């Protein structure tokens, strides 16, 4: 009796065991896929730092951060990151001057003024624009916007920071509009109703109630847009020139950090040469800048999420 009972149970137990084993295996596989994200981050840091270390053995960090000349391809070599940073900041600044007002107005309009139907039509169009490749925007900057600006201001050189800055601004308007609008829509309806009940107009509600309430979300949108502009490559590589130039004057041509990396990569890369290592040092600078901005944006967004 006992032995037959055992026989009927043990295959079931065995099946259960197999089932559990497979389940654990699959879970491990899925966990591994998740951990790849961590691996990628580690790999980025490892590659940038390990390639930048030989560079910093050749060039002191002090020189890198304070020298105002960047001429790795000349006979007298200078490795000061400041000219590349100034180019990056100038194009980013122009982009923000264009994108912040336009993006904010669009967000307030879509969130507080537009009818449901208008919003549902405009938002997908904004999302479509986010998908336009940046190399195409680079073409616009070089072939259309700069010649147009030259008609107004004839002294403008073919490669300048103004044209690409403006185009970059147009490119990031959808980011700001979409993120800021999300933040404003997330403000509880009760606050709007309260304002309306007090007799406030839509404009008063939008500017004095909704915008202050959503301010940390809106600031997060700005910060993410800055991070986007700082890391933007093709527009500036095509239209802002590839010669490092320590200037904040938008009508001059100047390379950004990203444009420098592209110009080196387009040439013949001599593996383990100082030119090769310098793009990793430049990349590390860029990564630190964007990482700082992303953390700031994350904090702002979290603060916003906590309030509601």
């Amino acid at each position, binding site marked *: 009796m006992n032995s037959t009972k055992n026989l009927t149970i043990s295959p079931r137990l065995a099946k259960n065991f197999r089932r559990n084993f*497979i*389940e654990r295996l699959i*879970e491990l596989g*899925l*966990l591994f*896929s*998740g*951990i*790849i*994200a*961590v691996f*990628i*981050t580690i*790999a*980025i840091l490892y590659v*940038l730092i390990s390639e930048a270390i030989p560079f910093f053995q050749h060039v002191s960090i002090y020189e890198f951060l304070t020298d105002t000349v960047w001429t790795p391809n000349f006979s007298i070599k200078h490795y000061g990151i400041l000219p590349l940073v100034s180019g990056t900041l100038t194009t980013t600044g122009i982009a923000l001057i264009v994108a912040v007002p*336009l993006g904010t*107005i*669009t967000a*307030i*309009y879509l969130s507080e*003024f537009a009818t449901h139907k208008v919003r549902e039509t405009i938002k*997908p*169009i904004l999302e*479509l624009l986010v*998908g*336009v*490749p*940046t*190399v*195409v925007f680079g*073409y*616009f900057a*070089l*072939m259309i916007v700069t010649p147009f600006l030259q008609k107004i201001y004839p002294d403008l050189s073919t490669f300048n920071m103004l044209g690409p800055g403006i185009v970059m601004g*147009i490119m990031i308007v959808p980011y700001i509009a979409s993120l800021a609008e999300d933040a404003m829509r997330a403000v509880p309806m009760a606050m709007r109703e309260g304002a309306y009940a007090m007799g406030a*107009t*839509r*404009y*008063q509600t939008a500017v004095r109630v909704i915008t202050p309430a959503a301010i940390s979300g809106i600031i997060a949108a700005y910060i*993410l847009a800055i*991070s986007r502009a*700082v*890391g*933007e*490559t*093709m527009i500036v*590589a*095509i239209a802002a020139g590839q010669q490092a130039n320590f200037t904040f004057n938008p009508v001059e041509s100047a390379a950004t950090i*990203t444009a420098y*990396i*592209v110009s080196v*990569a387009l040439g013949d*890369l001599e*593996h383990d040469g100082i030119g090769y290592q310098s793009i*990793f040092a430049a990349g590390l600078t*860029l*990564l630190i800048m*964007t990482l700082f901005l*992303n953390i700031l944006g994350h904090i702002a967004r979290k603060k916003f999420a906590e309030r509601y």
Partner: protein
Amino acid sequence: MKKDLKPKPIKDLGLMRALIAKHKRFDSLFAILGIFVLASLTITLLILFLDLVIDGYPRLNLDFFSNFPSRRAARAGILSAWVGSSLVLIVTFLSAVPLGIAAGVYLEEYAKKNWLSDLIEINVSNLAGVPSIIYGLLALGLFVYQFGLGQTILTAGLTLALLMLPIVIVSTREAIRAIPVHIREAAYAVGATKWQVCLQHVIPYSYGGILTGVIIGMARAIGETAPVITIGALTFIAFLPPSPVGIEPPFINFDWLNAGFTVLPIQMFNWISRPQLAFHINAAATGAVIIMLTLLMNGAAIKIRYNIRKKIKW
């Protein structure tokens, strides 16, 4: 005390009406400003796009798609570029999509709230914000030199997969989160294991949302230029990589993975960088092709998402 808090009523009706009218004017002024901003943005972009298409129109014919790049602008085409783009995208798709879905399923269905899942989550959102050129540097240091893969289709495909991965993970998670708990509970109640619940219920029901993310990611991968330039893609390719499908057995070969290549945006960049005007026409034509592709893909993704939102009621 209470009397002091009461607002003083405006006795003069005319003053009050003037005040209301003033605020209402502000209201409509801002509405007009909003419409003006939106309209000027749309018109600017429309002009830019139309200009691109008009500039490139003379070259947009079948020969353009079936010719190799050439020193003579009028005879140059984008054959090697679009074949290269397609092959790179195959690699990207095959590596990013399974990994991304698996990671998304893990984070939503399996992960317990602990330091490990927090770490993964922070990394995913952080990777989405890393500039694309940094991925190019990573691939240059890691894939090209450390792994010795060289400047090949495989390297480019994997690089773009890194870029696409966060997009797939995030969209998978969002899609899974929309599935109500009772679906899972019903499956568990009839004895399904966790993986069976995921494979037979959670993943199929979140299919649309995942597809949206995949299409958006692929559209981004098509237009992405900087990382592919950084790994050292060639700009002048007058040959095709070996065909992935052969007529003789074993029918499928993998030689194409190790071939040199160029992609559409790099071809465009190359033509923009040339001083001759004739090449700029080619660049515009290539740009028009890229824009059509990405707009179509993104449009499809948005449409799919819209349909899901409308259709599914749990």
